[in-house]
């Protein structure tokens, strides 16, 4: 029997094409930064710009999707069971404890994920976009009244944001292996379905996610 559809088709498309673009942008970006030579600066710069526009397009789609489906609520931060999740990653995972969070269609992300993804969406991404677009339109600065801006500073911010992105990606990829088995959390991101054997259908569970212990009622912050 099939499990519950956690990640819908658009969401999976968005996640993986974003992942591919970010990997490509990091690869070309650090060449533009001068860290190594692979494609040649000119090619790297051209493709970096192209991939950036594709990512912007993808994000416009994703923002539209998040608001029309109400999925944006998935990123509202909560401290509810945040301590339990952190405790699990620091200690529980070594002692054989169960993950304190069970994802549902209404709460796909554990509280730590919520915080991490919110930071990704509200801090790292805007920083990298704004600095990147400024970088790209360097020649238009005088026309935009931005003569005072220095390319060195914009590049510094862009690079700093890129390093933050790199750190996020490494941590994100590693933590994705911390389900029941190495692939149990990656599989639903590919197929869309939570394995039925791992979890009973939880369609009507709280939007804070469910736990092994009897579920608590939803936190006031998020119920609307």
């Amino acid at each position: 029997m099939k499990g519950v559809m956690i990640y819908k088709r658009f969401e999976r498309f968005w996640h993986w094409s974003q992942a591919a673009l970010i990997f490509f942008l990091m690869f070309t970006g650090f060449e533009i930064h001068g860290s190594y030579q692979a494609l040649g600066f000119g090619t790297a710069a051209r493709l970096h710009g192209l991939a950036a526009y594709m990512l912007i397009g993808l994000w416009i789609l994703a923002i539209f999707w998040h608001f029309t489906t109400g999925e944006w609520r998935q990123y509202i931060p909560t401290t509810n069971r945040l301590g339990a999740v952190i405790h699990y990653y620091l200690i529980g995972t070594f002692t054989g404890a169960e993950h304190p969070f069970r994802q549902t269609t209404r709460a796909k992300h554990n509280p730590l994920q919520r915080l991490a993804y919110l930071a990704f969406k509200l801090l790292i991404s805007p920083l990298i976009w704004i600095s990147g677009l400024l970088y790209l339109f360097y020649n238009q600065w005088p026309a935009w009244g931005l003569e005072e801006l220095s390319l060195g500073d914009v590049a510094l911010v862009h690079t700093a944001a890129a390093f933050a992105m790199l750190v996020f990606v490494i941590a994100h990829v590693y933590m994705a292996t911390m389900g029941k088995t190495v692939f149990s959390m990656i599989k639903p991101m590919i197929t869309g379905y939570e394995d039925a054997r791992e979890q009973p259908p939880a369609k009507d569970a709280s939007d804070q996610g469910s736990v092994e212990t009897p579920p608590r009622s939803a936190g006031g912050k998020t119920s609307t």
Partner: protein
Amino acid sequence: MNRTVTRRILWGLVAAMLGLASSTTTALERTSPSTADHERFKALQGPFASGPKVTEACLKCHTEAADQLQASIHWTWEYLHPETRQLLGKRHVVNSFCGSVASNEPFCTSCHTGYGWKDMREAPPVAGNRVDCLVCHDTTGDYWKSPTGAGHPVYDMLDLGDSSSRRPPDLAQIARNIGPTNKQNCGSCHFYGGGGDGVKHGDLDSSLIDPSFSLDVHMSPEGADFACADCHTTSAHSVSGSRYLAKARDTQGIDVPGHTDFTRASCESCHGVEPHGSAKLNDHVDQVACQSCHIPEFARGGVATKTWWDWSTAGRLGEDGKPLTIRDDDGNLEYLSTKGSFRHGENVAPEYRWFDGQVRYTLRSDTLDDSRQPIEINKLQGSHDDPNSRIWPFKIMQGKQPYDPVNQHLLVNHVYSANNDTALWTNFDWTKALKAGTEYADQPYSGEFAFVETLMHWPITHMVAPAKDALRCSACHAREGRLAALTDFYLPARDRSIWLDRAGWSAALLVLVGSLAHAGGRILTRRRRKRS
């Protein structure tokens, strides 16, 4: 039958297109034919006893030509710089090759566009017939000047016994075959500046007379087949394009008749200010001169250019007491007793500097600071923050020149004399030569001399390569690229904050190592649990 008709029409079309193509591409038909046949002019039938006699014949019809030429820098060798107020021109400047024209006149003035300028301390001769029309307008290639004749051609056989010696030019024959200037005319002086083929500029040498497409797309017969004057447009014998006050950034763009100044001596005057298909490349043209990317190397035509000239070693004679001539492995001059030590270069990558078009010279009257060598013979003005400046390519000429260490100025270098032994090339004695030179030019001289290391900038603008050979982005956008010396701006791929890089890579490494350690801990504890 229909088919043959179609075929005929097709062939006709092909032939017509071929005809059209050839009429637009061959140089011969591109140049408009003259309305006068100089062969038929009575005044040009000759014979002519001298160059000035030819000029007198020319001026009978071209009444304004002498006045026009005598107002140009080709004649005056003098240029009052409007910005720096320095009095420049060959008559006044010192260069890092032979030094100065003064005291070496009959030799140096063999490249003057006139006859008989024998004294640099005075203005060139005023008589109209002193203008040399033939040196610029000869189309036969047979006109040549005596190297020591103060501008006169050779009139008599130099050596009657030697049948291989070059014949004196037939002035009447040349006069009847005059025409517009071509590469050969301009090149007869400008390719040989500094004492030999390609010596001075690096981007101007005899290889440009018939260059391959890869050497120069504009001057090659396979390319645009330009003559010099196609870009260096001329009005009333005044030629556009100056080294003393260059147009480092042409914002006027394509030169449209009736709207602009008819000067085509900039890339933009034909190619416009957005010449590339790519917007990002066009974003560079406000700060990078076209030449910087499109002339990846100079001296590419097989003629070496001089890059180092050390006068201090001149005067050393062979064991037999005769002057030495030593060549290097490439066959280029390495040492001459008359001139000192040389280094040459072929396929030289230029050096890049910010340049707003203004050049300030170190003149003989300027005070040096010999504690800071090399001395810049000409200083470029410009910076990243100046909107009129762009990054330009330069040949950097270096060497050592005589100077007065007491008075701290460059000295007149008296190397050639036709009739006495005061000059270096006859006596090989610096003390005598410098004394004579400074006295001639009325220059203060302590009597002490030494050699100071000097450096001179020569802008590179010819030998434009095909687009496919232009520099790659990574030639400059790299940690140690061609622009490593220009540090007053942020250049992607070259510049970075080393601290941000260290912090960023450390953080990434820390998270990676932390993750692996965490994973190791999970595996270990799981095994232990299973065992128990």
